[in-house]
């Protein structure tokens, strides 16, 4: 029985845990007592993270589709086919007819290699991953206001906060060990809690103020809060003068958003807006916490900027237990962004359009002519496959059929691809469309690093071998590069890949595997003697002065009408993870939440004569699902909620692919639907 210290594969909390194993398989998991986030605890998913690894449904050999069926193949056959097809497509249709989806579940080293493969070998910037679907608006929004797109403060700082403003984050479901810190601070230390969410989430029971806004009206309520703070003279004039620019423009915009006007738009009572403003402004250690409810809108970037404006207005940034804290969902979505698996940047958010940066990477990678224009985002790739501009797609560790908006469109697009490769650990809903399936390795079966939501780069350690002929993803990518005659991916161990990342990435400059023992390092960590950075924007913002970037309210893309009377929003449960490929293979989790459902308000249920447990058909402009109803007071009249985990009633069959024009993130949070009894 060995015990291997590693990092949880589920959420962005990045808890440290031990994998127990005998010489054949994992036998269990337990938390690290001394790990700064775990502190001896895990959530139910972490505690059960051994089970899916041991599933006999794991992919163990490469598969090639012949005559519509998958046939087992050798690695040589599979990789030879991949290389020859991609070479053909590159020669016939150009580099940009190929695209790559990287994985927010895979390690930093693997994300770096896949984007290096796309850029250095295939000469395309068409590399993106699911951050596009979750926090792309955060990156754009916070870079323009603060200069850095990451969570400003650290997880342990929640313990000393005096106030939390939580909006668009079901924290106890999605980031349990951050949710618990909030609960403890509120219950045991008297911290104040303000929750603004269209759904009555679990944390509402602890809230001092709960505001249930109309879907997609966040710019309005946040501007309203700022309006009150300014008119009641509660803003931090000194901070504004010394640390920011653009205050006059902000004042000009928010002066229209009186509490009464905001009430009309959002349905939040004017008085509540005032209470929120006063409470937030008058507590020094005030933390804004947000997630998908803010980002997944056509106005996602504006929503994020408005929160940043609010924090700067009150001087609640650049100090411990303050800040603007976007909670990154996946275990390594922060890392995947940091190491450049994005179409417009290399590692460390260094832009591809910058010729100096391109020269630096050309030198590091031993190539010339790195592509100089930003590539396609994931939804643009889907459209590209659909209309034939994109011919080939290589997917590592993503399941767009369930996770991307407008599933029917995604399926058609994938079917239309000339060549599709999916590298994963299970035969997912997406993998069934592939021409070649490659068996990858889980977190328990390889070395590497993940970066959690508080910018902590942490070690992932191999505890057991991958099953059958499955391989670590970094090895697979390296082999493809080698077969493409590229000599720049000859690594003996992932630590060498991290050394390379550090050499080209200022924010990771001081990181190497020795320094990561025992509990990792929080970037920015520019040099070998730098201790890492718990909170950002101390004394000055990453860009120098923070910029107020005010926004006006714009309605969501889809508004209820005669045909589609309901507004549907989507979310995640505590028990399941995203497209459920790992958690459906975990008996305790699957048992706790075995079925999809749609939440409907009591008023609507009564009006339509629907009872809990009855099945209905929910239809949007894009598709239709049949699902059982849960009647609840969690949703207000006119709104519906569905978790997106279940292929049996996939919420994303219904969701709209209207996107934020700047960040290109889809508006998952607002789609209009109609409901019919079955």
């Amino acid at each position, binding site marked *: 029985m060995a*015990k291997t210290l590693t990092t949880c594969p589920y959420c962005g909390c990045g808890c440290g845990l031990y994998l127990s194993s005998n010489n054949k398989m994992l*036998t269990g998991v337990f938390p690290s007592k001394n790990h700064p986030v775990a502190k001896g605890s895990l959530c139910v998913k972490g505690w059960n993270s051994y089970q899916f690894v*041991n599933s006999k449904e794991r992919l163990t050999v490469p598969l090639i589709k012949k005559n519509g069926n998958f046939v087992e193949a050798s690695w040589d056959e599979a990789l030879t086919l991949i290389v020859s097809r991609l070479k053909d497509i590159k020669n016939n249709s150009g580099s940009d007819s190929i695209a790559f989806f990287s994985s927010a579940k895979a390690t930093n080293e693997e994300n770096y290699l896949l984007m290096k493969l796309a850029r250095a070998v295939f000469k395309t910037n068409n590399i993106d991953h699911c951050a596009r679907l979750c926090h792309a608006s955060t990156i754009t929004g916070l870079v323009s206001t603060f200069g850095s797109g990451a969570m400003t403060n650290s997880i342990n700082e929640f313990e000393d906060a005096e106030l939390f403003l939580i909006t668009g984050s079901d924290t106890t479901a999605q980031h*349990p060990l951050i949710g618990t810190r909030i609960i*403890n601070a509120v219950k045991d230390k008297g911290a104040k809690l303000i929750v603004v969410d269209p759904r009555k989430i679990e944390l509402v029971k602890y809230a001092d103020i709960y505001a249930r806004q109309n879907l997609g009206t966040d710019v309005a309520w946040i501007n309203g809060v700022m309006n009150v703070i300014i008119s009641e003279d509660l803003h931090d004039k000194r901070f504004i003068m010394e640390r920011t620019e653009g205050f006059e423009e902000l004042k000009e915009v928010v002066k229209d958003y009186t509490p009464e006007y905001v009430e009309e738009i959002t349905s939040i009572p004017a008085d509540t807006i005032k209470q929120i403003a006063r409470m937030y402004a008058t507590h020094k250690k005030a933390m804004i916490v947000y997630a998908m409810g803010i980002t997944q809108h056509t106005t996602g970037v504006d929503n994020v900027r408005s929160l940043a404006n609010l924090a700067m207005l009150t001087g609640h940034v650049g100090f411990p237990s303050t800040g603007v804290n976007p909670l990154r969902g996946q275990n390594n979505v922060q890392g995947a962004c940091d190491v450049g698996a994005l179409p417009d940047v290399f590692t460390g958010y260094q832009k591809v359009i910058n010729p100096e940066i391109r020269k630096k990477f050309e030198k590091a990678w031993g190539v010339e002519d790195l592509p100089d224009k930003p590539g396609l985002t994931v939804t643009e790739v889907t459209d590209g496959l659909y209309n034939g501009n994109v011919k080939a797609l290589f997917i590592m560790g993503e399941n767009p059929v369930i996770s991307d908006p407008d599933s029917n469109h995604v399926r058609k697009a994938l079917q239309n691809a000339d060549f599709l490769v999916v590298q994963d650990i299970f035969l997912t809903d997406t993998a069934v469309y592939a021409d070649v399936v490659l068996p990858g390795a889980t977190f328990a079966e390889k070395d590497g690093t993940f970066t959690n939501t508080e910018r902590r780069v942490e070690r992932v350690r191999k505890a057991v071998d991958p099953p059958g002929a499955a391989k670590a993803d970094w090895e697979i990518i390296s082999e493809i590069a080698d077969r493409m005659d590229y000599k720049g991916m000859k690594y003996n161990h992932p630590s060498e890949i991290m050394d390379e990342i550090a050499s080209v990435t200022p924010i990771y400059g001081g990181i190497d595997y020795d320094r990561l023992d025992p509990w990792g390092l929080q970037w920015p960590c520019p040099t070998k003697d730098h201790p890492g950075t718990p909170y950002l924007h101390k004394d000055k913002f990453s860009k120098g002065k923070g910029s107020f970037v005010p926004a006006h309210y714009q309605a969501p893309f889809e508004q209820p009408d005669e045909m589609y009377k309901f507004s549907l929003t989507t979310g995640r449960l505590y028990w399941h993870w995203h497209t459920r490929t790992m958690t459906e293979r975990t008996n305790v989790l699957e048992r706790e939440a075995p079925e999809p459902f749609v939440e409907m308000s009591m008023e609507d249920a009564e009006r339509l004569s629907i009872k809990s447990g009855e099945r209905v058909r929910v239809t949007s402009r894009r598709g239709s699902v049949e699902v059982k109803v849960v009647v609840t007071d969690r949703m207000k009249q006119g709104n519906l909620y569905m978790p997106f985990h279940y292929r049996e009633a996939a919420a994303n069959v219904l969701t709209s692919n209207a996107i934020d024009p700047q960040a290109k993130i889809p508006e998952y949070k607002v789609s209009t639907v109609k409901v019919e009894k079955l």
Partner: protein
Amino acid sequence: MKMYNDIRILDKKKIKDLLKSANSEWNIYAPIEGIGGDVYFDILPKDDKIVDEVLNNLSIKNNSNIALSPKDIFFPQMEVLFNIDKDDFTETIESSPKLIFGIKSCDLKAVLFTDEFFKRNYEDVYYLSRMKNRLLISIGCLTPPRPGSCFCTSTGTGPFLEEGYDIQLVDAEDFFYAEIGSEKGQIFADKYSEYFDKRTDGDTAKKDINKIKTKASDAVNLKVDFDRAVELMQDDDFFPNDNYKRIGERCIYCGACLYTCPTCTCFSISDTVSSNKEGIRFRNWDGCVFEGYTREASGHNPRYEKYLRTARRYEHKLKYDFKVTGTSGCVGCGRCLESCPVNIGMSKFIVEITEGKRII
């Protein structure tokens, strides 16, 4: 009733050599300190070249905070019951010789408790095979490893025991007094007499040992009225509704309290089979706080509400274990409180119902 009066001296400097020596005969599980200071039971490698490196991190401090009790040595978190190959299956049972070195008194009591559980009503061949060939060498704590959470003097399960161990080690700074507690322990001490020195002045040793044990008991700072709690819970009319409701609401259903509890034994059984009909039937740790645990095939759930599941947990440990076995399931190890991310734990529940306070 103590049958063995033998007390030996075990020089601390010789422990590594003792373990290396015994490693050929036994699979040795000892507390190892990992990179960041966490301590956990790990099996010593057989390879001479690596075992020294592992033993450098041996943690035999008198207050080692060992993350999980050795429950998972006999009852793994996930264990294969049998391998499936098309229409054939082969059971996986093992009874290799296991030496558990450095187990704490509370955990040892818990092991004896789970031994009884897996024999009672139905003989669990998997557990009983694993524990068949076993030696337990305990180290009593001189100071609480989980101060503020563990309360063994209140549950009568530590810091030292009168019986149940094969050998009980009492920390006397440079050496351990080794109290032999069973025939197996006697045989071991005799076989490895090179390390278990016979030279002791019996009476002086006993006085010294009693002094150490008394000091250790005094050092356990957290005390709760455990007997009163058990007494209250026996009463069928006693149902602390308000306490259960508050706990049920605060709980986030992570399962830590059950997973870390040395006497929790609930499990689920599932199959995982590949497309060519090969696979395993396995069992893994489950628990009563989960809603689905008591959900019936019809969909009805007699403990759907959260407070009923809280009640389930505390009634099991403080009421029904006692009714059925005469011993309570709680050994005062404090791991439930330590691993709970929202600061709920057995000691707090006991304070609530015995002192009428609201601390959860």
